[in-house]
């Protein structure tokens, strides 16, 4: 039995360096403890322990929330390129895309939970409904979307879940047996059915992700007429495009890092494929943002002009010029055109793009709120305090921990058999 199991180990990679793995897990658990302290403090003391105020009611946690919703929508849309539009060269990361999309949603909603005033009332958002509230629709879209992701993840992993369940591989097999929901069918017909389901769910999911989940999150801001900077029709579109940018970049980074960890050479043609998608969307994103800024400036709306003044020349000017523009766009585009063949350069580009989009999210949420509604009202200043950062680090490390456990115990990588089937199909 042992020998057959060896054969069925996905990708036949060398085992992950145990010491390094423990250091990584220890690091995550350490952050988790720090985060747990911050979250418990916040739960007991309320939002008074944050730097939020009545003048700046939304801060870092809301920025992280839209950041992770964006990552999720982007990762999911990338998965539809595989399962709906048949981009076979990307199929290796299809499951990873779905897993990332699901976990990102968990993180996004955790951030929202932290942010609402009375956390115990989170269920009100599902029970009560206001037909004019974008947020009310969003809550429902998020729920449907996460269920859809789970079902898709099941169909994407099913053949390998069945294989792992049949192998005698300790806890992995036990998990696979439970997760396969009793399915034992490895016939061609069954796999075709899986793909059909993936396609159908992907097609249903595309409008949900574009218009519901992330376009809707953009609309949540865009309908607020009190903030001129948000109040534009192109805003939801920018949200979707930057979601595609960050989702692709994150998957690219995760793929490269994990291939290195399991001691395999990353598939350079796939990395380049992902990089092309990322840079393409990145350029569209900046084109749209340019027009957004241009139109706002031409409107001469004092509120909008002040927002840009804060964004471009305020105390946090570097988040726009250095993080968002230089590291988040110019350097990655340069790397793409100059060092396309270097996996390391592509990894650096991907990480920089993800960080750049995080700055985009902060600059969406914070600067416009720093301007008081009336000139004669006191303004405010907002920077996340240590506790907010600790809690955020804790939530993110929870996500990374779930991801690490996910790729360790679930067949997120395609088994050798599946890869062979994939190649034969081409």
């Amino acid at each position: 039995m042992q020998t057959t199991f060896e054969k069925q180990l996905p990708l036949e990679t060398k085992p992950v360096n145990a010491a390094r793995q423990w250091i990584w897990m220890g690091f995550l658990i350490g952050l988790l403890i720090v985060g747990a302290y911050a979250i418990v403090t916040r739960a007991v003391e309320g939002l008074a322990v944050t730097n939020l105020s009545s003048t700046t009611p939304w801060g870092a946690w809301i920025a992280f929330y839209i950041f992770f919703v964006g990552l999720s929508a982007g990762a999911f849309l990338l998965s539809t390129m595989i399962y709906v539009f048949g981009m076979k060269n990307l199929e290796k990361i299809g499951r990873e895309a779905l897993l990332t999309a699901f976990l990102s949603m968990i993180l996004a909603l955790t951030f929202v939970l932290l942010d609402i005033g009375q956390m115990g009332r989170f269920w009100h958002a599902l029970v009560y409904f206001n037909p004019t509230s974008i947020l009310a629709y969003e809550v429902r879209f998020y729920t449907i979307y996460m269920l859809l992701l789970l079902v898709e993840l099941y169909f994407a992993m099913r053949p390998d879940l069945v294989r792992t369940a049949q192998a005698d591989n300790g806890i992995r097999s036990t998990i696979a047996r439970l997760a396969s929901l009793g399915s034992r069918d490895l016939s061609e017909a069954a796999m075709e059915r899986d793909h059909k389901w993936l396609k159908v769910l992907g097609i249903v999911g595309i409008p949900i992700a574009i218009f519901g989940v992330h376009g809707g999150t953009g609309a949540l801001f865009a309908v607020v007429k009190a903030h001129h900077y948000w109040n534009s029709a192109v805003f939801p579109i920018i949200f979707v495009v930057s979601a595609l940018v960050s989702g692709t970049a994150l998957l690219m980074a995760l793929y490269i890092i994990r291939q290195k960890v399991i001691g395999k050479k990353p598939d350079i043609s796939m990395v380049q494929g992902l990089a092309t998608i990322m840079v393409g969307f990145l350029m569209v994103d900046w084109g749209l943002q340019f027009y957004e800024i241009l139109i706002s400036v031409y409107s001469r709306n004092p509120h909008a002009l002040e927002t840009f003044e804060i964004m471009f020349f305020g105390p946090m000017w570097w988040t726009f010029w250095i993080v968002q523009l230089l590291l988040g766009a110019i350097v990655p585009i340069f790397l793409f055109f100059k060092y396309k063949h270097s996996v390391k350069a592509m990894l650096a580009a991907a990480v920089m793009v993800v960080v750049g989009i995080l700055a985009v999210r902060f600059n969406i949420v914070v600067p416009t709120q720093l301007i008081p509604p009336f000139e004669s009202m006191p303004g405010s200043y907002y920077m996340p305090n240590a506790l907010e950062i600790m809690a955020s680090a804790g939530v993110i490390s929870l996500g990374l921990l779930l991801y690490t456990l996910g790729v360790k115990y679930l067949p997120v990588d395609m088994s050798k058999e599946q890869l062979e089937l994939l190649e034969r199909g081409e």
Partner: protein
Amino acid sequence: MGYQEIKESLSRKELFKRGITNAQEFAAELSSIDNSDGPKWVMVIDLQKCIGCSACTVACKAENRTPPGISYNIVMKEEHGQFPNVSKVNIPRPCMQCDKPACGEVCPVKATYKMDNGIVAIDYDRCIGCRYCMVACPYGARSYDFGESYEGEMLGFDELQANEYGIAKGKRQKGSNPIGLARKCTFCYHRLQRGEEPACVETCVGDARYFGDINDPNSVVSKMLNTNAARVYRLREYMSTQPRVYYLK
């Protein structure tokens, strides 16, 4: 038949005929009747009379026992023009009680809603504290209750909370309403229920604030708005929120 007529015409005998035997059922019956011809409260503020003393802000804080950092009413002091042609204007700003409230539109759980009497209310039992309404209000009229207290400088502050919306709230303590929720001016709804004016109106030193029923053509506010039509304006009318606080410039 309108609300008032039904209320008056309902004799004890008729109530029994309808099978209504107790006060609670009677109240339920009354509230099921359309109240659209009941009073619709508005406020009129004469800026020529406002001296900017902020007595309204103080009275509001005392009446509603708002915690540190929350003031339902403020007086904005604006300076216009360039030297030597300058003028100063004081603009008191309570909640505008908009007919199309941006805050109520965005509330995901419908905790904020427009009452028939024109007041925009917050249901403290439903609000989750997401603060979307605060971001959406063009007038900065909403505050979040961070749970702060004056207990350190004012003994007994936490012992009693104002009975906003006519609902007794008891002690101010962690985890109880409205801590962790959005708050705002209620036009002193609890005072209206007792037949009193809002605290800011009652206290105004220069008699700059007026309050009344705009559905009643003979009310002071209706007459003021009619006779001073050229002076009437509302804050940020271009936002189409249709505020129910009128200013006379």
